[in-house]
């Protein structure tokens, strides 16, 4: 045990590791904040730089970038309505309306503190319950992924704005867009119209930037004369009362984040969406209605996506299975350094495990420091005149999209979706459900078909499967309850409209 503490504190004591973690976290925040620059990409690039280094400094830098990057996406989501990364999509839903009310500083402050709390919950889970959580992650069957995707899709209900029908249309459109490209099971081209350009599918980060960023800029350009929104920056650090009020929600959302992060193939983006949906369902009296700047709408996804970081490390360190795209890259890095991820890693090289845990904790402390500084400067961005802000968003969107894979085609996609999104908004359709569909559609498709194969294509056996494990039964019960609750609310709403 004393050894473990020593390894845990290694990066806190060693000045170069301390500096690398700080640098990584700082850089991560800004990489995450710029739409298109993704954490996965940043980590992939860093790995090549850290090639000749020892493994500890390399891991320190990567942990910092990962922690900072997952959080950084919230900045642009709140200030510009462009989620810096898919993990910040849910944050934009209420963060941006908060900024529109002049509360950008408060939104970012909350996002920072809750991200740090979520991050620590993830680390705690990694340190104390990694084997148990990886067992849970293993027990999640394809049919459970289907239920998770469906639960996520229920969010369409709250993202639809004025018309549920329009929201469902947009969600369905998103699912179809998400299915474009080679079918992953049969390699059959779907909706590609015989072109190779569509074989790889529609780049959904480009679509996300277009739908959120460009369409918003175009909407703002319709009224360039409106005065900019004055931002209140007197209280950046959230008051104690607000923290206490949101703490239960933070812990619940973090738990969702840890488990979803530990599932292979799902990361911070889906964790944040599910946590947002759970919050919308469970919080009785939000500070404002969800979608109109509820603090809970920022707290839930931000705690969940940072908790998912610790979650994603769990299957990587215990089983050698990547929990998300970033940990897949880290596994590659460990191989390059001659280490073999898997359960033996914890037995043969326990120092690496405790070093990682301690280092992630350190990165979260730096996140708190860097996250809470510079907010005043950032919020000035939201105070810029619309005639300046809209072109700025356009430029950022183009640069960010090009940076994804240096592809001018992606920029055209992004602009196309931006213009399409503008017209959708003009006619009262919301763009949120489209992006949601694009993310969850492929997950739903693959998990349903895998579940059917393991049920020998027998629908009865497929349904019986839900009685076979407590995870399946529990998730199915949550889905049914959510549907029942929504139906009940709709029915009650029709009888006596809630003001």
């Amino acid at each position, binding site marked *: 045990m004393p050894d473990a503490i020593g390894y845990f504190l290694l990066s806190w004591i060693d000045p170069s590791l301390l500096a690398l973690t700080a640098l990584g976290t700082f850089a991560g925040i800004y990489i995450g904040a710029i739409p298109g620059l993704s954490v996965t990409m940043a980590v992939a690039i860093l790995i090549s730089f850290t090639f000749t280094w020892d493994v500890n400094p390399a891991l320190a830098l990567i942990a910092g970038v990962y922690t900072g990057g997952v959080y950084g996406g919230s900045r642009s989501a709140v200030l510009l309505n462009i989620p810096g990364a898919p993990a910040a999509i849910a944050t934009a839903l209420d963060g941006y309306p908060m900024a529109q009310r002049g509360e950008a500083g408060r939104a970012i402050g909350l996002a920072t503190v809750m991200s740090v709390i979520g991050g620590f919950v993830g680390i705690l889970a990694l340190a104390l319950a990694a084997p148990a959580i990886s067992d849970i992650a293993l027990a999640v069957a394809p049919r459970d992924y289907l239920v998770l995707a469906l639960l996520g899709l229920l969010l369409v209900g709250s993202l639809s704005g004025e018309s549920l029908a329009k929201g469902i249309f947009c969600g369905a459109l998103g699912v179809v867009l998400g299915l474009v490209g080679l079918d992953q099971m049969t390699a059959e081209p779907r909706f590609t119209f015989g072109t190779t350009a569509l074989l790889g599918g529609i780049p959904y980060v480009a679509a996300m930037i277009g739908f959120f960023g460009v369409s918003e800029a175009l909407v703002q350009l319709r009224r360039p004369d409106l005065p900019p929104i004055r931002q209140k920056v007197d209280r950046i650090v959230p008051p104690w009362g607000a923290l206490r009020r949101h703490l239960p929600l933070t812990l619940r959302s973090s738990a969702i984040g840890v488990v979803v992060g530990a599932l292979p193939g799902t990361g911070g983006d889906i964790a944040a969406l599910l946590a947002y949906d759970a919050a919308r369902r469970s919080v009785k009296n939000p500070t404002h209605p969800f979608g109109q700047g509820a603090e809970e709408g920022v707290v839930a996804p931000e705690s969940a996506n940072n908790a998912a970081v610790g979650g994603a490390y769990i299957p990587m360190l215990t089983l050698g299975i990547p929990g998300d795209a970033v940990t897949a*890259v880290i596994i590659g890095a460990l191989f390059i350094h001659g280490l073999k991820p898997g359960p033996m890693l914890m037995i043969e090289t326990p120092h690496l495990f405790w070093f990682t845990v301690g280092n992630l904790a350190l990165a979260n402390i730096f996140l708190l420091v860097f996250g809470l500084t510079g907010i005043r400067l950032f919020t000035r961005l939201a105070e810029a005149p619309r005639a300046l802000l809209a072109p700025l968003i356009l430029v950022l969107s183009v640069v960010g999209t090009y940076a994804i894979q240096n592809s001018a085609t992606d920029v055209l996609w992004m602009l196309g979706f931006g213009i399409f999104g503008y017209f959708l908004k003009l006619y009262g359709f919301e763009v949120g459900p489209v992006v949601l569909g694009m993310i969850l559609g492929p997950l739903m498709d693959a998990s349903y078909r895998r579940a059917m194969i393991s049920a020998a294509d027998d629908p009865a056996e497929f349904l019986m499967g839900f009685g076979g494990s407590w995870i399946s039964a529990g998730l199915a019960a949550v889905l049914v309850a959510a549907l029942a609750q929504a139906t009940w609310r709709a029915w009650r709403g029709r009888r006596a409209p809630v003001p």
Partner: protein
Amino acid sequence: MSDAPLARRPRPVAGSLQRTPEETVRPVLSRRALPALGLAAALPAPALAQWNPSRPVTIVVPFPPGGSTDVTARLMAEKMAPLLGQNVVIDNKPGAQTVIGAEAVARAAPDGHTMLMSSGTTLTINPLIGRNLPYRPADFAPVLHVATLPFCIAVRPGIPNTLEGFVAHVRANPGKVTWGHNGRGSFNHIAGALIAERLNLDWQDVGYRGDAHQMNDLLAGTLDSILVGGATGLQVARSGRAKIIGWTGESRLPNLPDQPVFHEIWPGLVAITWFGLLAPARTPPAAVARLNAAAAAAAADPTLRERLLDQGILAAGGTPADFQAFLAREAERWAPLLRRLDITL
């Protein structure tokens, strides 16, 4: 051109963004290279044989970062950089069964500064099943056969864990035993189809995108077996919850002498994929020769060979002509089966 750049120790490798800051913001590099090229043209023929890259060499990896192809490319790049006297940067261009990355290299300038880290999917399988493939094998000039990769079968607990036992089990339960692969038309799917055809097995295939979900389902027991590359197979085996029962290579791996190959029991049943470096066709022979020399030296490095072997990858080598011959043999090996399977991309 001289070997002068060797004096400066190059930075090992940059990542997928390699084209952003340095090259686009500071085009000075390429402008500086122009007079150098003029100088090269003026030199007598023997000097031309000493071709050297004038700017960083890019290796396009048609897979996302982190996988075996990417790790191999990065290990190679690290060793090649000092030998070439230039940075060797990795550019990940994943997607569409490697078509996107391959097409980028097929269309790149044939000046010796761009190579593809191809796998069997790109140049053995795709040309045989692709109807509208935007590249042909003739668009590439082979540089080096980097490595050979046998597949392995790993099974969950509860499934017979010897090769013969497993095969008997599948035959006794037709259509019931599941095996995971990376999607129809992927190399491991086709390798599985070969095994099924040769051994007359009726097993249920399940397609996955990437390895993580497959590993998860195998370890969770919802999938009976996976036929995967060594890196993934060894990783699941290390978890202690699944076992590798056999490999599809020509002989046992030197580091795993107790794990059998199909070929021992069913002679001729071999299914391997490969990694190789290829330049765009019409790359000057002098450039190909220089790149081959550097890459072959890198692939012969003992640490690199050991790192690859840890992932079930056997480093290869040889001349561009050897690689060309290998590619022809592989295409011949798979063509009849793929015609029968009737998969089109």
